[in-house]
Each structure stands twice: as C-alpha cells, then as structure tokens.
C-alpha cells in the first residue's frame, strides 16, 4: 500500500509514559502492554514497592475477552495526495499503552490494566 509522507509544523506533547508510543511515520504492528497499581497512601512512610504486587490482585490474572476475528478484508487504498499535513497538534499526555501516531499504523493490539488501591493509617 502506498504511504504518504507527513509534513508537521508544530506538535507539542507534554508527557509520554508507561509503554506509550509517539510516532511520526509508518508502523506495521504495535502490541503495547501495560500493568499498573496506583496506591494512594495515608501517612508519610514509604516502602520500596509500597507493598504492591501484581499476583495479589485478580485483575491481572483475568483473561482479556478479545473479539472474534472478523471476515477477511481485501482493502485497496489509493492515495491521491502524497502528503499528510499537520499544522498544530497539542497533546498533554499519552500514557499506559496508548499510541499517538501521525502516518499509517497497520495493526494495533494493545492492553492496559490499572488497579487503584487506598491504604489508610487507622486499621
């Protein structure tokens, strides 16, 4: 499939974290995975790993129910203009297996898991 070239004037991106992808150009396959535990803790005692362990939570063991593959698709693309023009793009954050792509990306298979927990001082 023909590809288009990307002309960018100004892209401002503030944050790119936790297996996120920012790409100007073309990508064939992207398979980002991300697992996170967000701990909100009372009190100022800090352990190394905040006592967070992925095996503790069932959320990380669950099977993702991926949709069944659809019918085969024969796609023919004709690019009548050779360029993608981007004048101004302003994004604050791209995070947790997210993708910010200018240009083509053929196949994406991504998964993100986030468990929020709160730890209080009083029992």
């Amino acid at each position: 499939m023909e590809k288009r070239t990307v002309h960018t004037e100004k892209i401002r991106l503030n944050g790119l974290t936790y297996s996120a992808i920012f790409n100007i150009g073309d990508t064939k396959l992207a398979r980002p995975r991300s697992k996170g535990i967000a701990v909100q803790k009372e009190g100022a005692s800090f352990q190394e790993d905040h006592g967070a362990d992925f095996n503790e939570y069932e959320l990380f063991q669950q099977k993702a129910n991926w949709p069944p593959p659809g019918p085969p698709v024969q796609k023919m693309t004709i690019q009548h203009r050779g360029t993608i023009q981007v004048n101004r793009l302003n994004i604050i954050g791209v995070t947790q297996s997210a993708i910010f792509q200018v240009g083509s990306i053929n196949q994406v298979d991504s998964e993100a898991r986030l468990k929020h927990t709160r730890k209080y001082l009083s029992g």
Partner: protein
Amino acid sequence: MIRTVNMEVHNWELCVANVEVGTVTASSVFLVGDNDSFVMSSFYDTPPEATAIGTIVPLSG
C-alpha cells in the same frame, strides 16, 4: 462459505489545522492517517470504598 469484504479506499486531502487533546490513555490511539485493524482492551478497578453509596452532595457555591 467465507465471504471476503472488498474495500476500496480513496484518500484525498488530510490536513490537520489545529487539534488539542487532553490525554490519550489506557490502550487507546490518537491517529492521523491510515489503519487496518485495532484490537484494544483495558482493565480498570477502583477500591471498594471509592464507590459512592447514596446521593452525592454537590459542592456548595
């Protein structure tokens, strides 16, 4: 009988003047361009005490 989807795409002008986005998060995609297939999944879980039981009183003012 497997039926194939025949698709013909004609791309003409693709020009982004000015776009502002807050955040793109949890296995999502912000794309300016072409794609064939997206398969995405995200799991999210909040602590039990985060669930609001009963009516939520609006902040004053």
